[in-house]
């Protein structure tokens, strides 16, 4: 396993045009040919080279893509087999403690004791982050206020709903005043309303609090709303790293379901210049703009078909990157993972 399998150019070769304005700021995370092979031969990361700019970055990958391993390496808890990672300027192997001083971490799984109050717990975790007792108490109260836990904070965590527990997990990561937050699947187990609330909260922390955030998720459709950039990994390798705009521009599709006349609709849509594909008992149409909706609506109306469903599809990352239709000429970033992809900035 040579470390040079990383895709492409280093930071210097990154695109000059940086829409998000992070061009001058140094990256918060630099991974260089990062490789992790676990004992037993399982390759969790295979030469990952990618930079994370300040701001909110989505780390997208299916389960087992290497997200959690990457996070553990970034926290200095797991040593890479090969390659290096720098977080806020500290080397992950030699500067683990400095990294953990300035990085807040929210694990994917449940990690809260049920029999203490949120205030006590977050205060204690603040102390563990190196805050003196008084400061830890103050910051715990503030962090819990920021995540929207008010009077409930004196209740035992065991009595909380899943959404409230997720907020406590976020609050404990915030308590130590981090410069970077690593959030692993923060919307896990939440209902749609809870997901929205959590995403809004994360967006607010990123935008208003000025804390850089890496949100690991396997649901692209969910976090694309709040991210400036996306880094997609699969099988421990970089699939693509880009700003959110160039990511989603070519990725949105419309799902249309009609009770009957699917073939007729397909042909008519092709005739009107769209590129529908059949997907189970429905059609998928790449969205080129607002006009696409109109065209589909008009077509269905003109054919007089009973329309039962029409919705913008939420992509799971696998299909986004596997869909062969994406590598068409109108998708400029189609050769992902090759050239500028290595640099999210």
């Amino acid at each position: 396993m040579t470390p040079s399998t990383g895709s492409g150019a280093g930071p210097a070769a990154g695109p000059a045009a940086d829409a998000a304005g992070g061009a001058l700021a140094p990256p918060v995370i630099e991974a260089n040919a990062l490789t992790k092979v676990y004992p037993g031969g399982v390759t969790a990361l295979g030469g990952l080279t990618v930079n994370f700019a300040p701001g909110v970055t989505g780390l997208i990958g299916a389960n087992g893509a290497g997200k959690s391993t990457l996070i553990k390496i970034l926290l200095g808890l797991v040593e890479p087999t090969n390659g290096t990672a720098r977080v806020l300027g500290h080397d992950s192997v030699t500067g683990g403690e400095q990294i953990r001083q300035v990085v807040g971490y929210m694990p994917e799984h449940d990690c809260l004791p049920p029999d203490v109050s949120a205030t006590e717990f977050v205060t204690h975790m603040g102390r563990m982050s190196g805050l003196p007792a008084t400061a830890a108490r103050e910051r715990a109260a503030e962090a819990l206020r920021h995540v929207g836990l008010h009077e409930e904070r004196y209740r035992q965590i065991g009595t909380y709903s899943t959404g409230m527990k997720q907020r406590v997990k976020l609050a404990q990561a915030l308590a130590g005043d981090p410069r970077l937050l690593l959030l692993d699947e923060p919307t896990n187990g939440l209902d749609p309303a809870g997901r929205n609330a959590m995403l809004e909260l994360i967006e607010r922390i990123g935008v208003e609090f000025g804390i850089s955030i890496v949100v690991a998720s396997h649901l692209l459709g969910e976090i694309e709303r709040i991210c400036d950039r996306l880094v997609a990994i699969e099988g421990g390798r970089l699939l693509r790293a880009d700003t959110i705009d160039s990511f989603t521009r070519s990725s949105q599709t419309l799902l249309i379901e009609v009770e009957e006349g699917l073939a007729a609709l397909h042909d008519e849509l092709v005739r009107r210049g769209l590129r529908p594909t059949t997907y189970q008992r429905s059609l998928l149409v790449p969205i080129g703009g607002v006009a696409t909706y109109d065209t589909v609506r008009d077509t269905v109306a003109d054919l007089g078909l009973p329309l039962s469903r029409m919705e913008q599809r939420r992509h799971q990352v696998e299909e986004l990157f596997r869909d062969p239709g994406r590598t068409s000429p109108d998708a400029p970033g189609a050769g992902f993972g090759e050239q500028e992809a290595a640099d999210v900035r």
Partner: protein
Amino acid sequence: MSASTSASAAAAGSVIHDLGYRRYDGPRLGRAQIIRALAWHSFRGAFGLGRGAKAKIVPLVALVALCLPAVVNAFAMSKGNPRLVDYDTYTPALRDLVMTVFVAVQAPELVSRDLRSRVLPLYFARPIKTIDYPLAKYLAFTGACLVMMEVPLLLLYAGSIANVHGGSAVWAQTRALIPGLLVGLMWAVVLAAISLFLASLTGRRAFATGAVAIVLLLTFTLAEILLQVEGQQNQGPQVAVVKGGPPGGPVHVQPILYVPSLADKVSGLFSPFTLFDGVRMWLGGTDPADGVSSPGGFGVVYALVLVAILALCLYGLAARYRKERLS
């Protein structure tokens, strides 16, 4: 959505409005200070402090039980009796039992809870090393066991010097106290290591308590049984030992004097409690009638076994958390 709406509604209704995010630019504690904070937090936890009333029952009852002999002694001495309780043995049976209960119930409180609630990744993500977590827990629990061991002794001492007169008498009490305190230290250092290691093997509190209690009681019982078997064999044939002489010749009857055999001494190696006793006597402590008999020169083996147990448990504890971090 709904949660944040209600949150902002609550904020609007109250006088204090959202102040926005404030950075922290005050001092940061170093690694040693974080360890100290965790150790203090855990030490308090070992006595149920900062927890509910239920968590305080066992440590409180245990401490009171251990202190009772000292109180009774003070009362007896005030009536003119000499000191009833030795500093180095204190009441052995009571101490074995109460300390077993204390470490079996409270060691899981320190380590199993965190395993159960899977909070460890949060500790590992703090600016400390992985080893620091078990280190802080060990320091805390050694301190807690030390309190359990030494507070009764100090009470005993206080009760004694209150009832003796003259500087030399006080000095005699003090000189007797010091070995007692050292014995307490030995107990605390070893018992904390054994119980924390065993408790750290499982997040299920009941199992952890069971494991600690069973290991301590089982080994103690085993050692006691072996001691009795050996003792009976020693005293067994009351007819005494026939020595030398041809059949029919004069028979020398040895007086039955209890001399511990090698097997007898080996029996004492099986339990921490008998090891404590053996080492204590090896170092010159009093030899009570029951329990382990003085190991004499064999005491060095007792000490080595005790140190080996301590080292193994501490290594096991450290390895346990290294594995936990990587999982």
